[in-house]
């Protein structure tokens, strides 16, 4: 059973198994073990980013395609739901409609980009997608009548997901069981299904072809694979999964705007999560996303306490002030690439 669920792709290292179990357990119990709005939000963000990063890994780690357009697909999914919930009364039908439309549009766009980009070199593809994604970002802000422009869209979600819903009046373990909890478990469940699905795809014969293309595209052609087709298919699949992650994001935040879904900085975060976690392993996405989202959410808190302890030291205090958190994030970028050249998963497996 577990074998099938995990597609016979096990962590293959005791340490990694422990880490993954810890993460899953942490996420399952998050609302009760770490109460508070901030931590619940962190947990939900982790779930969403795990899907997003895993879908990107399908492209980057498994197929060897560097794309900067992944947030675009993420955004399309989110905007799909946002627009639909804005246009229609908040119902599950509207959510499904928006999600469906986003999915179709994302995959369609991925198809177009894929078909075009097959003609150009790998690194060109990266730059092309960078340009396309930034144009899309500008377009989204320009079509303000539709998308709310820079300001984004705020909307209501189905009643079951809003705090207004009270499941039981009493608190369980000091936590109120309201729509937010429902919402969280919806996101957790969907993320789990999507990640297992992606794990299945990369271990299927199709996934193996992608790896072969990554290794030696010329040779893959010579043994009879139409690599153009496979690469496009991978692009579409990953775009679709990203769009679904966007749907989850839209449902969770009840707000969709360029800064939460389309921006280049999210794209860079995704890249970093894949690389820190370990490319070409879905487990890497899980570990990378978790660590990075945690770091990003609590870096400022950490620095605030560092700033307190160094209150007397002039320059140092300036450097560790929470306002300079970006500085440390940048340093984190550099260091994590150095210390985890094969990703955390590579590290853990190497030791085991």
């Amino acid at each position: 059973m577990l074998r099938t669920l995990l597609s016979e792709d096990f962590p293959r290292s005791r340490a990694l198994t422990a880490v993954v179990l810890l993460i899953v357990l942490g996420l399952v119990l998050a609302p009760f073990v770490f109460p508070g709005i901030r931590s619940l939000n962190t947990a939900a963000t982790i779930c969403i980013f795990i899907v997003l990063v895993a879908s990107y890994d399908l492209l980057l780690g498994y197929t060897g395609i560097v794309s900067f357009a992944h947030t675009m697909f993420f955004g399309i999914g989110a905007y799909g739901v946002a627009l639909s919930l804005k246009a229609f009364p908040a119902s599950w039908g509207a959510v499904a409609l928006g999600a469906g439309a986003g999915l179709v549009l994302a995959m369609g766009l991925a198809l177009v980009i894929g078909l075009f980009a097959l003609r150009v070199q790998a690194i060109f593809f990266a730059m092309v997608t960078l340009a396309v994604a930034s144009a899309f970002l500008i377009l989204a802000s320009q079509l303000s009548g539709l998308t709310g422009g820079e300001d984004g869209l705020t909307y209501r979600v189905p009643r079951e997901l809003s705090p207004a819903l009270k499941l039981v009046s009493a608190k369980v373990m000091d936590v109120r069981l309201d729509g937010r909890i429902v919402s969280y478990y919806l996101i957790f469940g969907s993320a789990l299904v999507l990640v297992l699905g992606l794990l299945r795809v990369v271990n299927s014969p199709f996934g193996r072809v992608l790896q072969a293309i990554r290794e030696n595209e010329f040779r893959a052609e010579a043994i009879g694979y139409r690599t153009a087709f496979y690469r496009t298919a991978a692009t579409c699949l990953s775009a679709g999964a990203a769009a679904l992650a966007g749907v989850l994001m839209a449902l969770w935040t009840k707000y969709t705007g360029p800064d939460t879904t389309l921006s280049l900085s999210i794209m860079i975060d995704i890249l970093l999560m894949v690389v820190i976690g370990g490319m070409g392993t879905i487990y890497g996405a899980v570990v990378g996303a978790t660590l990075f989202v945690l770091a990003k959410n609590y870096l400022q808190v950490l620095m605030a306490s560092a700033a307190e302890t160094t209150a007397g030291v002039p320059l140092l205090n300036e450097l560790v002030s929470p306002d300079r958190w970006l500085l440390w994030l940048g340093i984190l970028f550099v260091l994590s690439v150095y210390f985890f050249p094969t990703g955390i998963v590579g590290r853990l497996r190497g030791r085991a």
Partner: protein
Amino acid sequence: MTDQTSDASIPSPPLADRLKAQAPYWTVPGLAVLGLVLIADASTWGTLTLAGLAMGMLIFIMASGLTLVFGLMDVLNFGHGAFISIGAFVGATVLLALTGWTGADSLALNLGAVLLAIVAAMLATGGLGWFFERVIIKPVYGAHLKQILVTMGGLIVAEELIHLFWGPNQIPLPRPEMLKGSWVAGGVIVEKYRVLAVVLGAAIFIGLRWSLVHTRLGLLIRAGVENGEMVEALGYRVRRLFVLVFVAGSALAGLGGVMWGLYDEIITAQMGLNILVLVFIVVIIGGLGSVEGCFIGALLVGLMANYTGFLAPKVALGSNILLMVVILMWRPRGLLPAGKG
């Protein structure tokens, strides 16, 4: 021994092939003529074309360093954006200290101040480039993805350091007195500052091209990118060479930063990142590692922005992307990919 000796050389390719190879060089005049036809008004066309070409030169100055590093060393350096910003800030510091010179009604003093600012900026960014290469890039040669990440990290750190040193405010950077305003002749407006940009851009272009095509240095760099190990086995210190190229590329970014800062007259820590996508587009259109291609690409982008901005403002937004798509459809490796001269 064998009759392989008999034919000493191969015949040159047919005319059609040669014409096709030259086509990229005709794109700029072609676009200009197309612009004239569509705009139909000679003086408007003149204003737009001259401005567009100068704009192209400015972009080229910023892109040249990137194409050098990206094309020759195969390093995708997002930190380039930070060098542009830092160059601008260092240059601005010098220029703001020399208000006596910049405010004077003397072209010589004005240019002197700009020159000093440029030298200071190039020294600063060149030095920073050296540090960057040693500390940040060195461990990730050959790994694009990691390059993207570490240089992105470097970019963030550099932007933050700018905030730390120069404060979070944008800094106004007025042009020197004699470079303000425009000349107007027969309805054609020519901004004075853009003339400086053209002169500088052309000088850089010629200098770079010469040193890459006519010196061993260029040869070595090209060989080193392809197979650094083999270049070392021939007795050259590739590492040192790469540092040199990287420093040169960074210094050019600094120069570009000063010029762009003076163009915008306002500088911010994010300016480099903001312009970076455009710079990447130019490098791609040109073809990796080709200084000529980058030059042509920059001019095309400059012209295209002005023509579309005038004729169809709605299209202006996507004009660069459109240009890139069209060029890549025509030539999947860019206009003049390196390895062709």
